[in-house]
């Protein structure tokens, strides 16, 4: 490999067979090019699906009460379950070791919202300070509800970015402006941003305020949690399933619900859902690899084919070399070395071009479920290594045939 003499030989032959070398290289380069673009789009789809899931914190768990469907301990089916502060507080106490963030939520109904003379048609929800992290909302301006607001039942409101754009486009900042909720002024203290615009059409107020001011009593509509992050994905899924089951068990007991009546308390875990989609993207990835491998095989067959022609073309030359004392191994090495060199150079060329294309075009692609197609450089690099290895294997048959060239026959005058 580091024999400088052989490199000189190879450069000589390549220089003197430019077109042939170029065409061989082109087939390999385009093979790698196609493979990398494919893998890039595979990654893009994965990114796109991941993006869909980033709306909520990845370890979030959500609880919705429903309607019982089974008779249990003398209670009739069809009973609507209503969660209360007590449920939320008890669950927090029971599971506080496994919970990262927690928030109850109440939907404030039957209120009118006004900004000056303008009536707004956005939903109002009472949430806790942690809700920002559970819903993965990021602050554009100001701050989210804090503990102090909650304790003091502060009349503050956080609005979505879309509301800011739609309603507050004439003021510099909505912070400090007041909106009326059923005649009560609420001061806007923050603007939040979500992945999806429709989730920005909300107004959040402290849950305590929502309950006290708008006759909520101690009722809550749902509860949401996040669990502490765990490095290992499977462990994280297991953790969230355990938590989900424990939580449901507690709520079923608290509300006298049959243990197998899953519709009465619905617990939804983002991780479990994500796992299904990850499974899907894994399958897609597998499929792209399969296509990629097929492309490589096509490339390898191409290289093998061309090298066979090369050997055929150079039969006489090989015969001469053997007559002059070239050992079989040196003939094999000469052909292999050339094929590996050409494969490597063109493989990297294809890689660089395809990665440049992904780099330039990728970020501008705006299609649902495809986001920033790109390839992990390691993946691309190992693909090239695989191609070189495969090229070696492909080149070996022609090289072997070259080594078996019979001097007498190859030099026979036509």
């Amino acid at each position, binding site marked *: 490999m580091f024999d*400088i*003499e052989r490199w*000189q*030989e190879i450069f*000589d*032959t390549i220089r*003197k*067979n430019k077109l042939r070398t170029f065409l061989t290289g082109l087939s390999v380069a385009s093979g790698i090019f196609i493979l990398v673009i494919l893998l890039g789009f595979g990654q893009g789809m994965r990114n796109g699906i991941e993006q869909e899931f980033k709306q909520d914190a990845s370890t979030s768990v959500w609880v919705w009460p429903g309607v019982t469907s089974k008779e249990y301990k003398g209670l009739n089916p069809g009973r609507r379950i209503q969660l209360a502060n007590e449920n939320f507080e008890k669950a927090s106490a029971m599971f506080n070791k496994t919970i990262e963030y927690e928030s109850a939520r109440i939907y404030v109904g039957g209120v009118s919202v006004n900004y000056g003379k303008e009536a707004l048609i956005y939903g109002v929800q009472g949430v806790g300070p942690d809700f920002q992290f559970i819903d993965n909302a990021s602050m554009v301006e100001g701050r989210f509800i804090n503990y102090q607001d909650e304790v003091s039942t502060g009349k503050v409101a956080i609005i979505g970015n879309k509301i800011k754009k739609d309603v507050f486009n004439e003021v510099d900042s909505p912070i400090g402006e007041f909106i009326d909720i059923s005649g009560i002024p609420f001061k806007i203290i923050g603007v939040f941003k979500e992945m999806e615009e429709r989730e920005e059409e909300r107004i959040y107020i402290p849950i305590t305020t929502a309950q006290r001011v708008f006759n909520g009593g101690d009722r809550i509509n749902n509860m949401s949690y996040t669990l502490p992050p765990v490095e290992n994905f499977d462990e994280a899924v297991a953790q969230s399933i355990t938590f989900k089951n424990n939580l449901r068990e507690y709520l079923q007991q608290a509300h006298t619900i049959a243990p197998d009546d899953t519709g009465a308390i619905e617990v939804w875990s983002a991780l479990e859902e994500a796992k299904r989609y990850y499974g899907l993207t894994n399958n897609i990835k597998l499929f792209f690899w399969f296509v990629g491998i097929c492309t490589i095989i096509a490339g390898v067959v191409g290289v093998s084919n061309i090298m066979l022609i090369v050997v055929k073309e150079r039969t*006489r*030359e090989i*015969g*001469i*070399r*053997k*007559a*002059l*004392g*070239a*050992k*079989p*191994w*040196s003939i094999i090495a000469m052909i292999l070395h050339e094929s590996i060199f050409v494969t490597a150079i063109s493989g990297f060329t294809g890689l660089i071009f395809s990665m440049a294309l992904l780099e330039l075009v990728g970020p501008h692609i705006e299609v649902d479920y495809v986001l920033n197609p790109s390839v992990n450089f390691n993946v691309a690099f190992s693909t090239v290594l695989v191609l070189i290895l495969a090229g070696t294997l492909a080149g070996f048959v022609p090289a072997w045939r070259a*080594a078996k060239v019979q*001097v*007498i026959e190859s*030099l026979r*005058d036509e």
Partner: protein
Amino acid sequence: MIEIKDLHKSYKMGSNSLHVLKGINFTVEDGELVAIMGSSGSGKSTLLNILGMLDGADSGEYTLDGVPIKNLSETKAAEYRNKFLGFVFQSFNLINYKSALENVALPLYYQKVPRKERQEKAMQYLDRVGLKPWANHLPSELSGGQKQRVAIARAMAAEPKVLLADEPTGALDSTTSYEVMDLIQKINDDGNTILVVTHEEDIAHMCKRIVHLKDGIIVEDKKIEQVRAGQYV
């Protein structure tokens, strides 16, 4: 230098076996210039292939410079070819994308001579055949006689024990043929052993000994008065 005893060789042609060499006994001393003559089918090419270790004999002994040549692996044969033998072919067999100099340097490459030394040595041999000014020309830019002189320089560059020439003048007109023979005679004068396969009488008479092959046996083996090719050039 070369000792051959009772050499037999036959080729399988379907179900028939063609007996080409039927017991050749033949010795070449150091510094001889031998012409091997015979019509086509006489077995002279087969004999040359066996002498050149490009083909193996069925039976018999072949000793080259005291080394028995028998059951060689391809690698070993290649090594001996490189060390002991230089080939000159009828159709020159130069590598067409390499310059004259590179062609001459090629056997030295297989002897693992460093590049610089290789170039110098090749240039020296090109000079000896009078083609120094053409060193960087491709074979396609040379005349037939020049090509054969490059081929001879290439064969000599490896400093072989024996030079094997297979119809070296077969593709050349008579004037050029004599030039090439003149060169071969000069190389022989320097003490090199040379075997020339030819079917041309005048070429054969420019050697020092003629071996006549017919139907696989030596029918005549005589020393002759050498005709110097120089007088025709």
